[in-house]
């Protein structure tokens, strides 16, 4: 019985020590990777300014808000990280807004598990570009098989992936409805 306890304890302690050492050695690098990945997608939302810096602001329940500043100190605007309920599961989006919060600067898909080749095409530039310049004061909507009218915030749905396209549009509408008042409230 004593041998049993001693061996088990010894193995646990050794394992704990090894893991603690590994974690200690790698944790900085892992954190750097995480921040680099986040900054890369944040920068991409604002047209790929690699030297821009981003500060996290207090967001709402479901959204996280980042304030972007260009390398020369001018305000880039805000990026809102928001969820959307896709066909395969949750989609995480970053939506970039201008400093006046009136228009969308760009969107990035951070995470998704949509079907490759169908819903997965939301990551393609062609789909994402449609959102650039859209008005944040009107709700977005999507159309199928006809030319979208950007003046009334229409985007073209992905062929064969209506549920995913609809999820993105709804997610952005709901996320911005929470985030914009939160940003405005903070400025006052």
């Amino acid at each position, binding site marked *: 019985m004593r041998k049993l306890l001693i061996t088990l304890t010894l193995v*646990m302690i050794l394992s704990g020590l090894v893991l603690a050492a590994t974690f200690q050695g790698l944790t900085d690098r892992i954190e750097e990777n995480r921040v680099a990945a986040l900054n890369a997608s944040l920068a991409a939302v604002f047209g790929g300014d690699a030297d821009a810096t981003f500060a996290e602001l207090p967001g709402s329940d479901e959204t996280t808000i980042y304030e972007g500043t260009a390398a020369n100190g001018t305000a880039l605007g805000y990026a809102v990280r928001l969820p959307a309920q896709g066909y395969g599961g949750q989609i995480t989006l970053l939506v970039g807004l201008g400093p006046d919060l009136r228009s969308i600067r760009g969107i990035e898909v951070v995470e998704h598990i949509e079907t490759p080749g169908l819903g997965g095409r939301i990551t393609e530039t062609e789909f994402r570009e449609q959102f650039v310049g859209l008005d944040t004061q009107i709700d977005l909507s999507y159309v199928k098989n006809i030319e979208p009218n950007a003046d009334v915030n229409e985007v073209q749905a992905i062929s064969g992936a209506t549920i995913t396209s609809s999820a993105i549009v709804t997610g952005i509408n709901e996320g911005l409805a929470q985030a914009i008042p939160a940003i405005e409230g903070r400025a006052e």
Partner: protein
Amino acid sequence: MAVTMEAAPAKSRSITAEFMKGLVRENPVFVQVLGMCPTLAVTTSVANGIGMGLATTFVLVFSALIASVIKRIVPNEVRIPIYAVIIATFVTIADLVLKAYFPPLSASLGPYVPLIVVNCIIMGRVEAFATRNAPGISVVDALGMGAGFTVSLMVLGAVREILGNGSILGFALFGDGFTPMLVMILPPGAFLTLGILMAIFNALKANREPVLIRT
């Protein structure tokens, strides 16, 4: 399980034979049908297959080594918990290393790296081989099984990536005229590919073994 695990000490067999059995005769995927969860889930590309295969091999080799070295001092009653702790330790190390040095691979393998801890190949080899054999030959066995697992995952990943995405290791193979067979990188494609490869594997094996009854 279709294959009886190695029970007796394998002193008589050569190191080469011990390594090679993991590749073909006792291939963990196609013959023993172990580790199906990562086999089906991550083989959407060759790169994923190699990454998962190597991570599993790493855990397998070190767990087998340690288990074999300490086999005489481990009391039988706590054998399984101790091996579980050892395996979990190496899985966590593998997960951290992947996160630190290969973040894209780590992201695409997702939860399946931590899940190596429940991969039956590892517990199977540790229990069935490493605890009954010397450290040296246990490592050879683990390397063979790991290689067999990695090669199987690569083959699955290659078939699925070529057909389902029209590329191999990320390089496009065909022109614009090729429409990828989407289903192959979706879950049904994993089952179809595995089933067909297993059928081919069995057919090849059957041809090499003497046929007793022909119906």
